């Protein structure tokens, strides 16, 4: 059975040209870039190229890129660094819909005695910017707001938020793991101090990430040890992955337009067809300010895990914000923060596309999905009443 992969916000396939770029650095050019011999030195040169490729994707300077092991490490590094840089400041501002890499970290900070403000979002997953401005205090060490939400694709106005933070002398970090490579990002045109990127979300390998740290930003390292990354992140460089990551960023820059034309067209086609063909369905999140590849749709009175397993029978891969898939017994914290009612939250499905998806694949999903939902609804004790109420309302 052919796999139809519509779960690209979870992870992506390594692009063929990325894999090709990486392979020689496992067994042929395996030298340590820190070594004094030219066998290692040639790898160091290749790392410089990769660093420039990553920097170019977001119009940053290569020396502003620190390689890390993943997006989570980048997030942890950024927040801990800011707190270390301003030890007398004890307040952190973030949102209720952040990725666990931030969400769980700030919960930990709260236990350590920091004051944490988690800004609420509205029904569309949007921030209230006035509310945000009021949350900034002289005691605030750092603001961390995600650029694009992994579950809904909703974009936060992080550039505007960063400008406000900067005006008050507050560091600003954004988890841009889902945004980089999908929307244009130009670090010369904003005041964001730190930005997290992940390799495997943009057709690079897993286990590699980067943290952009703007020149002049006070920084203190997370991992202490050797002098790698100019002393900002110790540990022997993951050379094949860094090289693959660089290649993936170059490819993402090349495909950026396609993300916003072809991928967006396919996403819109899928979304509109499902909304039209399946009664009592809704899109979660602000459709105007959203990643081009993501749609989060809820189907009332059915449960997400059951939908996913039925899709699985057709080789279709997607995700759900339902309780049964979260491992926590409660539906996704993002949908709950948005106030999505339980009838809808448990039946939410996220489709996230990539440039490798085809129109045939999308048509196949459009064909299969209505029958799956209808079948599960005949099983549901709430469906008849709910449909009647829905029809009346």
């Amino acid at each position, binding site marked *: 059975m052919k796999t139809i992969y519509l779960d690209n916000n979870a992870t992506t396939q390594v692009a063929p040209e990325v894999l090709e770029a990486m392979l020689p650095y496992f067994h042929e050019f395996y030298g340590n870039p820190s070594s004094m011999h030219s066998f290692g030195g040639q790898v160091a040169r290749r790392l410089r190229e990769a660093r420039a490729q990553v920097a170019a994707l977001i119009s940053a300077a290569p020396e502003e890129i620190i390689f890390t092991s993943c997006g989570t490490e980048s997030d942890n590094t950024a927040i801990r660094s800011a707190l270390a840089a301003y030890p007398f400041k004890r307040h952190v501002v973030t949102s209720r819909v952040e990725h666990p890499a931030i969400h769980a970290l700030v919960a930990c900070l709260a236990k350590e005695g920091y004051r944490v403000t988690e800004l609420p979002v509205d029904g569309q997953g949007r921030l209230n910017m006035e509310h945000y401005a009021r949350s900034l205090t002289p005691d605030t060490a750092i603001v961390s707001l995600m650029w694009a939400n992994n579950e809904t694709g909703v974009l936060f106005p992080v550039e505007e938020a960063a400008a406000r933070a900067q005006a008050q002398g507050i560091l600003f970090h954004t988890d841009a793991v889902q945004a980089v490579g999908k929307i244009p990002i130009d670090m010369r045109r904003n005041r964001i101090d730190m930005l997290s990127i992940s390799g495997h979300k943009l057709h690079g390998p897993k286990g590699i990430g980067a943290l952009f740290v703007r020149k002049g930003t006070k920084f203190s390292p997370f991992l202490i040890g050797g002098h790698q990354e100019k002393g900002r992140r110790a540990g022997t460089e993951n050379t094949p992955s860094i090289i693959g990551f660089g290649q993936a960023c170059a490819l993402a820059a090349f495909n950026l337009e396609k993300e916003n034309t072809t991928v967006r067209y396919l996403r819109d086609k899928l979304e509109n067809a499902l909304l039209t063909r399946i009664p009592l369905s809704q899109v979660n999140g602000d459709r105007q300010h959203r990643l081009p590849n993501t749609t989060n749709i809820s189907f009332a009175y059915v*449960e997400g895990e*059951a939908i996913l397993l039925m899709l699985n029978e057709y080789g279709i891969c997607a995700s759900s914000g339902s309780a049964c898939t979260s*491992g926590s*017994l409660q*539906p996704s914290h993002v949908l709950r923060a948005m106030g999505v009612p339980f009838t809808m939250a448990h039946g939410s499905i996220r489709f996230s596309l990539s440039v490798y998806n085809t129109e045939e694949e999308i048509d196949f999903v459009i064909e299969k999905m209505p029958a799956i939902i209808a079948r599960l609804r005949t099983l549901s004790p709430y469906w008849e009443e709910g449909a009647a109420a829905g029809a009346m309302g």
Partner: protein
Amino acid sequence: MWEYSDKVKEHFLNPRNVGEVEHPDGEALVGSLACGDALKLTFKLDENKRIKEARFKTFGCASAIAAASALTEMIKGMTIDEAAKVTNQDIADYLGGLPQEKLHCSVMGREALEKAIANYQGVPAAAAEENIICECFGVTEKEIERVVRENQLTTIEEVTNYTKAGGGCGNCHGAIQEIIDRVRAAARPAARPKLSNIQKIRLIEETIEREIRPSLKQDGGDIELIDVIGNRVLVATRGACAVCQAAQLTLKQFVEAKLKELVWPELTVEEVA
């Protein structure tokens, strides 16, 4: 992804007895939309008071659907008394097991069955006076006590897997622990049958031979059982143990601890010359 058995997958993809029995003799709806799963069970009896037809409707995940489908198959042909004896473990076993985190699906099946039987027998629902422990999922003290007792649960995590209780805000974790402690304290005497003197001595000998002597011998020591008087175990140390400064410590922390654990919790070890 959950590791579902083939039988769970099969019952999920081809659920049996979907729908509602017309003019049912017993019916029940358990769970809710907010909780993320719900089960409506209806059944009808034949002239011999056996369950002739059972049907279900489920809102929930694959294992919730499979558990309900399995339940309806299991109870068909049973008398009410027989059906009342079906446990959540029976449902899980029928399906070739459920992932730990999904055991609450089988508990939901058993609850629906129980409530439907009560409905048939005309027993009024006593829900109003029940003490809710987990506010997030509306789980009562009685329900938690029951799964702890029937499935010998020892941790809060297990209780969450079976009932969902404690899986939300976590405020009830203290209360759940109290229930576990209470039920286990009550269950202990029954779980450990009283030993006769002969049985006790034999078990002590076996334990020394199997669990204790090999370790002592590694250090050139040995131990000999002299007598057992009530719960006093009289031993003599031999070999290196007889001249070892730490022998007393070994007797208390190793020999006595082992015997308490494996034979009888009230045993004490004494050294005789």
